[in-house]
């Protein structure tokens, strides 16, 4: 089956943060209102550019996430477009009320970059740093757009779209290098899921770092004669309800895939749309109400049921449920 917009073979490994920096370098030059704020977080290539050429547009507020987010809101009040950078877990956790009250409440034009520790697939650092709750906690805040890129190409397109969008956005970036999945030509649109595979037996809806494992799962299933639709849900909020409902109607079974908690995460979001519009069997792959722990990415995937094999197994389960309910 044809793989839309997918590089054959997959391209170079790169971290999303590096790709984000590459996009920001161009954006910074075009838009003099962009200001960078860091919470003692590693800067990246764009910071070097700013330190040299735009020193009054870059600030580090130290290990103080609450001040990082609210001062960014103040900068937006003063007409600037601030991008904040701090660990995902501490931004969501320690500056939650600030995101809600100082940014989202008034729809201020602040871009909150959740760096390095979005999701549980963070190597070595352990449970205090692995964010299981970012999607669940943020999508319940009104006015806040939440995006979750899957590869370096998508990260750049998202960054450009986010800079142009007027309003609060949170961008979740994983810490580990990911392969480049997409060709440059793929048509990115904020709020519109990408259809990489258009099979009819079931749908996998994945986000972020889990897209590449979902592609692998699709390959495993194809060899067994099962053809899935694969959706990249890069915009968690506002979620592409149309794509979810079409998937339910046209394929009859859905598996959601994320590296955060299924409670309220992407799995919760998709289930909400399905239950209200067109009920079909849904299985959620993700963290099942546990904290993370130290380990390599591969060890963590195995431990928390996030491998391509786990995804393929879940697809077969929902197909069985689909058949038995007929």
């Amino acid at each position, binding site marked *: 089956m044809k793989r839309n917009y997918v590089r054959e073979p997959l391209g170079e490994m790169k971290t999303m943060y590096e790709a984000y920096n590459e996009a920001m370098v161009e954006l910074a030059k075009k838009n003099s209102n962009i200001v960078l704020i860091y919470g003692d977080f590693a800067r990246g290539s764009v910071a070097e550019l700013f330190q040299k050429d735009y020193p009054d547009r870059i600030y580090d507020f130290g290990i*103080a996430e*609450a001040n990082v987010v609210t001062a960014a809101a*103040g900068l937006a009040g003063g007409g600037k477009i601030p991008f904040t950078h701090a660990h995902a877990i501490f931004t969501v956790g320690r500056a939650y*009320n600030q995101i809600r009250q100082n940014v989202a409440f*008034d729809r201020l034009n602040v871009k909150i970059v959740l760096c390095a520790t979005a999701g549980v697939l963070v190597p070595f650092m352990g449970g205090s740093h692995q964010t299981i709750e970012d999607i669940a906690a943020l999508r319940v805040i009104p006015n806040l757009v939440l995006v979750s890129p899957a590869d370096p190409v998508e990260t750049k397109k998202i960054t450009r779209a986010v800079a142009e969008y007027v309003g609060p956005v949170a961008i979740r970036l994983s810490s580990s290098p990911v392969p480049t999945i997409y060709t440059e030509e793929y048509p990115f649109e904020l709020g519109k899921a990408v259809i990489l595979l258009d099979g009819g037996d079931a749908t996998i809806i994945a986000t972020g770092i889990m897209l590449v494992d979902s592609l692998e799962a699709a390959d495993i299933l194809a060899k067994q004669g099962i053809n899935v639709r694969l959706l990249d849900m890069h915009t968690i909020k506002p979620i592409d309800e149309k794509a979810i409902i079409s998937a339910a109607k046209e394929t009859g079974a859905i598996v959601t895939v994320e590296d955060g908690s299924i409670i309220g995460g992407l799995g919760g979001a998709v289930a909400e749309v399905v239950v209200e519009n067109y009920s079909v069997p849904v299985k959620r792959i993700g963290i099942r109400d546990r904290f993370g722990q130290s380990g390599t990415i591969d060890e963590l995937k195995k431990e928390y049921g996030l491998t391509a094999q786990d995804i393929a197994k879940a697809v077969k389960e929902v197909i069985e449920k689909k058949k038995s309910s007929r």
Partner: protein
Amino acid sequence: MAYDEKLIKELEGKAKILRRDAIEMIKAGGFGWVGGSFSQADIVTALYFHRMKHDPQNPEWEDRDRLIVSKAHCCETVYAALGEAGYFPKEEFSSYGKFGATLQAHTERIVPGVEYSGGSLGQGLSFALGEALAARISAPKDKSGRPLPRFRVFCILGDGECDEGQVWEAAMAAAHYKVDNLTAFVDHNEFQSTGEISVRMTLEPLPEKWRAFGWDVTEIDGHNFTEILSSLERADKILDKPHAIIAHTVKCKGVPSFEHKNLHFCKLTDDMYAEAMKALK
């Protein structure tokens, strides 16, 4: 520093109008934060009617000075000031706190003239810091290369509010970045919601704390306009440090029988209303 008596009298007169209008607002809404609204009223008056560069006919003017009222529950005297200045018609006062009103129970940016949607204490100073930084970005520079900020930012914090850790995050950052166009008043009325601050959570030595964080600090009588104006003028002149003005104030100042009582958030009875209006004649 001496000021023209006429100016002082004018400001005292304005402050009385603000207190009266605040009482009317609270009467119409039924509830309000009398104590803290009244303790800050003279500072609010000095800012809107003397010190701040602003235009009620143009609330979006990019180079306007900003006031961030971090203790946003004390909204009544702020709304009174904005109505008196002409940001919106005074007829709006009677809608305070009611369903569908622009004048919500805590100040919000939907009100013309309000810069900050408060209610969650401890965050306003960070917001003020961000605004103050925005004024410095791409600003013209003086001969020594120091930016000439496009506007000044003022902030009013409660003393109880200084319990919140984020206040000190902002204080640290403001001093680090030498944000000298930022001036924060602490409305030091010695009370917080449930009682005296000395009992709830020891704040003293408060001026020393701000000094230790690298701020330029003045202490004033927050109800003496000469002192308020002097402290503002001084803050304008001192460079490379943000400014904290610790204003010793009296909760409910302006209605002698209410003063020193912790009328933090209260229902205004007919008797209280009558007493207040008599005192504010």
